[in-house]
Structures are given as structure tokens and as C-alpha cells.
């Protein structure tokens, strides 16, 4: 069934189909072409810029099913909108997003124009609803960072309802990543892995650190901070025979540790500092000198090592309790009939 949608940009109703998109684009292009002949080059450029922005807005509008998306919540300059059937998942996801945003990004925005993150969601239908159509139903969740001008950073993602919060955070971190500046971006290579839980990320990084075998990496484990800085790609080698570099996830872990130490304003401080090197970004984020940060990070890694080996504390008591219960059950249940 074709549902009409209303474009918030040009205020006309049109059926939602690939053919109508094409028609709409043709009309806009034709409309812009006539006046363009009488304009000079800069006016023509402005016109193209405006047209591009409008097309982008129309595309967002089409993707996000604007006719059914309604506003649900608004807090800290971010507006949550979603299709009605996605409402509960959207609110849950938004709470998780708000919590993670406050923790890692604070008030920082991907661009002065705000942002717009559109997530296509899907969920399985129950057996009764499946008689009426497809097994999956789809919805949309739109996260809008105000002021949401045509210059707003934009991204689209797809997610199941269960994974929605995680996808909102991941999408936002991808939008935020370019704001770090070229040196920090190059050093990190990828947006921070916020899709991983703290425990998983730290544990993986710890194993990477502890099992690396290069001279610099081993020196870092032994407590040499210059070797740590070299193995993390922060400084040049203190000696010419030094080899080894930690994997990128270890760098990301250090970066997130710096943000965590610095508190919610860490990301904003990086933006304000315009760091020329990754080390400066870490300094701005954590508020600590690089060596202090490296010491705290390394100590954290060492503390994560499994001190008791494979045996978890309290396992003996747990086993004793359950074995006692099972034995009592066996004594009572053995009426051999």
C-alpha cells in the first residue's frame, strides 16, 4: 500500500516511490535550470548548494517515513522521534544513548548545525500478526540534534529493536569522530569502539598488551613509559633498535580511558584545544600530563590480569551449596518404585 508522505522542506504531498523521487528531482532540477541561465557563477553555486540541501532533506524525509514519525522526547538539545510501533524500543534506546552521550561526549556536537541520525528498525512479528503479512515489521527512529540546519551532520543506520540503543551510540560516535581533527583521527584510525562493553574492551586490550612480544611492548608491560608511548604510536622511538606497536584497539582503550578520567567535558576540551598531535588530545581529554595518564592506564591494565587463574572466588561455596541441595534431593527422591 502506498502511503502519502509530507516533506517538511517543500511542503507538498507525494506518494512514496522510487519513480516519484525521480520525478521530484527532475522538477527541482528543471525549476532551478531556468533562473540559472540569468545568474552569475556564484549565484549558480548558491543555487546548487541549496538544491543539494533540499534533496538531502527530502531523502531523509523519505527514509524516515515522516508521515508516521512523531516526536517522543526532547532533552539536552536532542529530539527523539519514532514511528508509533517502535515507540517503546525508541524510548529505551534513547535513554541508553543519553547516558552514553553524557558519559563520553558531554555537550559536544558533531557540527554547529546539529545532527540527524536516522535508524531503520526491525522486529519480528508474533505468529498471529504474521498471517497478515511479512515476518518482520519495520519502523524508524530519528534522533535530531538541534539546531538541525541544512548543515547538520547526517547518518543512517539499521538496527533490530533490541540493538537500537547501541546503534544510536555507534552512529553518534561516527558522526563525532571527524570533529577530533586529522591528527587524532589518524592516530585512532576508527571511531572509538563504543559498541563494546567496558569489560570486553578492557579485557581484550589487556590481552593484547600482555601478549605482545615486541621490545617496546614488553618494555611497556615492565613499566617503561617511553616504551609505552612509542608502542601506542604517541611518540618517536627513544632508541633505534626499538620495535613493536600495540593494535589499534589498545589506542582506542587509552583514548576512552583519557575521556573517562577527564569526565563529561573531555570531548569538548579536545575540540577547543585543536590538538596537533594525539598526545595533546589525550592531555586535553584527561586533564593529566601524558606520563601520568600512561601510568594510570598501564596500572589499570596490570590490575585486570586474572590473579586467581581460572578459579573464580566463591566458587567453592557455590558448589558446596548446590551439591548439598542435590544430595538432599537424591536422598529424598530415591523411592525405588
Amino acid at each position, binding site marked *: 500500500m502506498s502511503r502519502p508522505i509530507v516533506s517538511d522542506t517543500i511542503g507538498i504531498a507525494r506518494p512514496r516511490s522510487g519513480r516519484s523521487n525521480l520525478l521530484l528531482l527532475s522538477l527541482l532540477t528543471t525549476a532551478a535550470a531556468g533562473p540559472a541561465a540569468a545568474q552569475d557563477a556564484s549565484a549558480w553555486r548558491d543555487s546548487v548548494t541549496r538544491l543539494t540541501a533540499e534533496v538531502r532533506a527530502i531523502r531523509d524525509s523519505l527514509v524516515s517515513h515522516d508521515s508516521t514519525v512523531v516526536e517522543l522526547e526532547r532533552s539536552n538539545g536532542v529530539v527523539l522521534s519514532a514511528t508509533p510501533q517502535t515507540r517503546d524500543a525508541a524510548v529505551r534506546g534513547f535513554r541508553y544513548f543519553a547516558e552514553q552521550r553524557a558519559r563520553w561526549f558531554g555537550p559536544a556536537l558533531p557540527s554547529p548545525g546539529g545532527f540527524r541520525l536516522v535508524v531503520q528498525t526491525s522486529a*519480528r512479528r508474533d505468529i498471529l500478526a504474521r498471517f497478515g503479512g511479512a515476518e518482520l515489521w519495520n519502523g524508524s527512529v530519528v534522533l535530531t540534534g538541534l539546531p538541525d540546519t541544512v548543515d547538520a551532520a547526517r547518518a543512517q543506520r539499521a538496527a533490530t529493536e533490541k540493538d537500537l540503543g547501541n546503534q544510536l551510540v555507534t552512529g553518534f560516535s561516527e558522526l563525532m569522530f571527524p570533529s577530533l581533527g586529522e591528527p587524532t583521527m589518524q592516530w585512532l584510525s576508527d571511531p572509538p569502539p563504543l559498541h563494546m562493553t567496558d569489560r570486553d574492551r578492557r579485557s581484550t586490550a589487556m590481552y593484547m598488551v600482555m601478549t605482545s*612480544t615486541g621490545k617496546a611492548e*614488553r618494555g611497556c608491560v615492565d613499566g617503561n613509559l617511553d616504551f609505552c608511548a612509542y608502542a601506542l604510536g604517541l611518540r618517536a622511538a627513544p632508541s633505534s633498535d626499538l620495535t613493536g606497536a600495540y593494535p589499534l584497539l589498545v589506542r582506542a582503550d587509552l583514548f576512552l580511558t583519557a575521556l573517562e578520567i577527564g569526565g563529561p567535558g573531555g570531548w569538548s576540551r579536545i575540540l577547543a584545544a585543536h590538538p596537533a598531535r594525539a598526545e595533546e588530545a589525550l592531555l586535553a581529554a584527561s586533564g593529566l600530563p601524558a606520563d601520568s595518564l600512561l601510568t594510570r592506564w598501564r596500572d589499570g591494565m596490570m590490575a585486570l590480569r586474572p590473579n586467581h587463574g*581460572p*578459579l573464580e572466588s566463591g566458587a567453592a561455596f*557455590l558448589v558446596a551449596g548446590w551439591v548439598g541441595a542435590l544430595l538432599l534431593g537424591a536422598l529424598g*527422591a*530415591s523411592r525405588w518404585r
Partner: protein
Amino acid sequence: MLKAIMRIQWKGSWHLVVALAVAAFALPIVSVRTGWSGTPANLPGFLTELELWGLFYPALAAVAAIVVAVSIWISDRRGHHIYALLLPIPRWRYVLLRYLGGLMLLLPIVLALWAGAIIAAASLDLPPGLRTFPHALAAKFALSLLLLFGVAFAVAASSSRALGISVRLLGLFIAAHIAVIMLRPGTNLIWTVVTALVTSPGPFAPLGGRWMLIDV
């Protein structure tokens, strides 16, 4: 009385216990020998391989627990428990003696694994940063074996009627799971129950985690 019960059980299942003890002794040695190249060039790969080998420890504990529990009760089941009913002792005491006799059969298996872990750990020249945990591994294996033997023993000792009721309840639960998952696709009863069983304070929580003889 305990000695007599132990002698009967040992006679009936010594060959199984020896086989399980040999497997327990070999497991740690084979696990480190297959992955260790003698150089620290690929430590993450070695530890990953060792972690995969670690899956065999709870598996071996499960096999040992089931085999010993079944071998303890098989003669009673064959004889319809007439021998037990003829003895001048209460039923609960007979079951307790059987249980203690079973624990004695598990002891050689645990000791074999402990010895194997110590030998395996001592045979490697590990780089700094890696540590060995033969005692903790053997202790974890012993606790897991004790727990799984408790479960297997309780099932093996129970009456046919109790087993029948348990099987029917299990079938009912699976039917309920299917109905719920069709009406509410996001709700998985089996997964919920399994999660409760394998996470603390669930009975199988001690089986989880990494079974690492060598770790960072």
C-alpha cells in the same frame, strides 16, 4: 559398610575410572604441546588455542560424572533395587554410602588431571608476562566434577516415577517455550532458564569462565 560398597563399585567400574584418569592426565599436556611452538612469536594465538582446549575440561568432567554415576547405579537398576532393600539399613544411608563411594572413584581422575597440569606447566619455558595455574585449574576441575556428579547422581538415584515426571515437565516447558516464542518473538524461555543456570548463583556457574592452564 562403606568399604564393602566401595569395593563393589570399584570392581564394577575400575576400567572406566582408569580410562578417564588417563584422559584427564593427558588433556593438559596435549593442550599445551599442540599450541606451543617454543618461541613467544605468537602468544595471542597460543592463548586462544589454549582457551579452545579449555572447553574439553568441563566436557571431560561431564563425561566422568555421568559415567561414574551411571556405573554406580546400574547394578541396582538391573536388580530392581532388591539388594538394597534387603540390607538392614535405611534407604537414605544406602544412597549416602553410594554417593561417598562414587566420590572415591572420582578422586583418581582429579589427581591425574592435577599431575598432568603440573607436568605440562613445568615442561614449558614461558616468556615473562605469562603465568601458569596448574593448582587452580585442578581445583576448578574438582569442583566442576563434584557438581556434575551431584546432578548425575541425583538423576541416576531417582525412581522411574520421578524421572517420568521430570521428563513430562521438561516436555511441558518446551511446549510452553514454543508457544511463547510464537506469540512474543522477543521472549525466549529456554535461553532465560539456561542463563539463570549458568550465571552465579546458578548451579552451573562454576563451569563457566576460562579454563586456562597458562594465562597472562
